[in-house]
């Protein structure tokens, strides 16, 4: 009878594959159009993350990097139009991280409101003093800006030490306003864009643990004859270290769009998080559309070159914002 069970399972899978294909067509053709990017929604995410995924065997492909960069450019554009101020572009293998210089250049040339600037990572490790760095060095073009914590800020907001955004009435402020006019030619808000990879995740937690260990050992060495005091860090303290309070570190995204850039081997495969930093996703709302459009899949079956990748689309972005706006947050209550 085991062959009956084996055959039954194959039948289940066939029926399921047909169901998924039909469901994919239904969701694309018969579900109502999402609201526009600039529509007023009940709530907007203050921090959006876009998690780009591709097949393992394509991570070294130059065309994948181009596809990721194109997705990042689109995401920044959509965020600006929707009024989202903080964006994290994430991919597991650090493809965007290694191309962050190029991304910064493209975003700079696309919109004069962005002034490239290298920011040092702002994760604070207690209580050991931070290691020396070259934070005073200037950004120098195409060099990869990935660092050991796997997080780079590409496009900073016009921050406190930047020219004042609002015009004043005094002579000095008029001078500042003219500088602000030189920097910003559009009225659209700027977007803080961070680029991250999996090295900003569990490895950072291990690094923080090592810093705490080192601090406890140093404390014990400064008091010879006494055993090292055990530590008792709280979740709030870890949150401060990992997400930061006063500087643009890796705060928790409110909404995450997970997007398969390369064609998934199975239609409508379930969402995966591709090693996105675990601490930050506690209350993150997810949006995931696992289906490639029928047209794209047909083109791909004809020839890979006709539809090599799926780029982030505005419709997908708008659907994500609509889902987020309708989400209810009870936080345990």
């Amino acid at each position: 009878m085991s062959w009956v069970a084996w055959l039954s399972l194959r039948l289940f899978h066939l029926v399921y594959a047909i169901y998924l294909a039909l469901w994919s067509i239904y969701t694309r053709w018969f579900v109502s159009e999402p609201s526009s990017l600039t529509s007023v929604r009940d709530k907007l995410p203050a921090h959006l993350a876009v998690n780009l995924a591709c097949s393992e065997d394509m991570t070294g492909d130059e065309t994948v990097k181009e596809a990721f960069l194109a997705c990042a450019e689109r995401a920044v554009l959509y965020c600006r139009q929707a009024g989202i101020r903080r964006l994290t572009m994430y991919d597991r293998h650090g493809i965007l991280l290694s191309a962050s210089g190029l991304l910064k250049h493209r975003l700079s040339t696309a919109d004069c409101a962005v002034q490239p600037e290298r920011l040092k990572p702002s994760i604070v490790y207690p209580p050991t003093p931070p290691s020396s760095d070259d934070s005073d060095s200037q950004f120098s073009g195409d060099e990869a800006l990935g660092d050991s914590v796997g997080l780079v800020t590409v496009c900073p907001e016009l921050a406190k030490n930047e020219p004042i955004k609002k015009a004043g009435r005094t002579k000095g402020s008029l001078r500042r306003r003219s500088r602000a006019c030189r920097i910003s030619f559009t009225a659209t808000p700027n977007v803080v864009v961070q680029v991250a990879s999996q090295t900003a995740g569990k490895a950072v937690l291990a690094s923080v643990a090592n810093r705490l260990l080192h601090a406890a050992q140093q404390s014990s060495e400064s008091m010879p004859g006494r055993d090292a005091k055990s530590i008792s860090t709280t979740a709030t303290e870890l949150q401060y270290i990992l997400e930061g309070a006063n500087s643009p570190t890796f705060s928790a995204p409110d909404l995450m769009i997970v997007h398969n850039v390369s064609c998934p081997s199975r239609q409508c495969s379930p969402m995966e998080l591709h090693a996105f930093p675990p601490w930050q996703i506690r209350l993150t709302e997810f949006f995931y559309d696992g289906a490639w459009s029928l047209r794209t899949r047909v083109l791909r079956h004809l020839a890979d070159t006709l539809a090599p990748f799926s780029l982030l689309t505005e419709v997908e972005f708008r659907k994500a914002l609509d889902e987020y706006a309708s989400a209810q947050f009870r936080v345990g209550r």
Partner: protein
Amino acid sequence: MAAAYASSSIFRARERLVDLFQRAVVAALRTGPIPRHVAFVMDGNRRYARSLGVRVVDGHVSGYYALRRVLEILYLLGVEHVTAYAFAIDNFKRTPEEVDALMSLAQDRLIEFCEHGGVLREYGVRLVAVGNISLCPPGVQDAIRRAEEMTKDNTRAVFNLCISYASRDEITTAVNTTVNEKLASQSPTPITVADLDAHMMTARGNSPPLDIFVRTSGVLRLSDFLLWQCNEDTQIQFIRRYWPEIGLLDIIPILLDYQRKVWSKPASES
């Protein structure tokens, strides 16, 4: 009287048919790859109760029966580790009446789970309580201890019951424990991700990496559950039905998705 007998016979026959159907489906699914570790966020008990116009506590009781049902299906399938999010640290913010009702339910049903005829006893499942148990009332702590003692020799499978749990609390505890162990042993080696992994609460039951994470009721968040365990190669499934409504028909597509993933992997990765 004849009508009552006939009705009862029809009911028993229907139950028998449902049971046969379930076993046939399970037998078919077992011919393919089966996940080793599945986790559930049992969400939607209160909304289910409100949709039926019953008390919230009745929704939680229905949720308990759903848990029994799901555990039975999964252990029949051969899943070795099941983790369920029964009560979050944040849930203590609910009304005292509801918290008391939930704690009372946990206290009563935990022992029922482990006794003769209970799911855990029947399938040789070891219960591991995961969470900050010291926050629970003494009666619940005692029930947990007894349940763990009753099942400690079971070796066929593990049930991680997350009670008074929060993933960030788990990660923080793992960091503290790992650091303090290194301090005590004066080990010169640095702390690695694997060290933190070994100190997660789910490691108590030697649970392998999570294969499937399921959340019911249509909510699209992880809500501080198994963040460390599910962020890599875990399939995340959000299903619209409320937890008390879940059954075999909801589990089938989840299993099929898992099998499709395993079959689509290159032979070198399998």
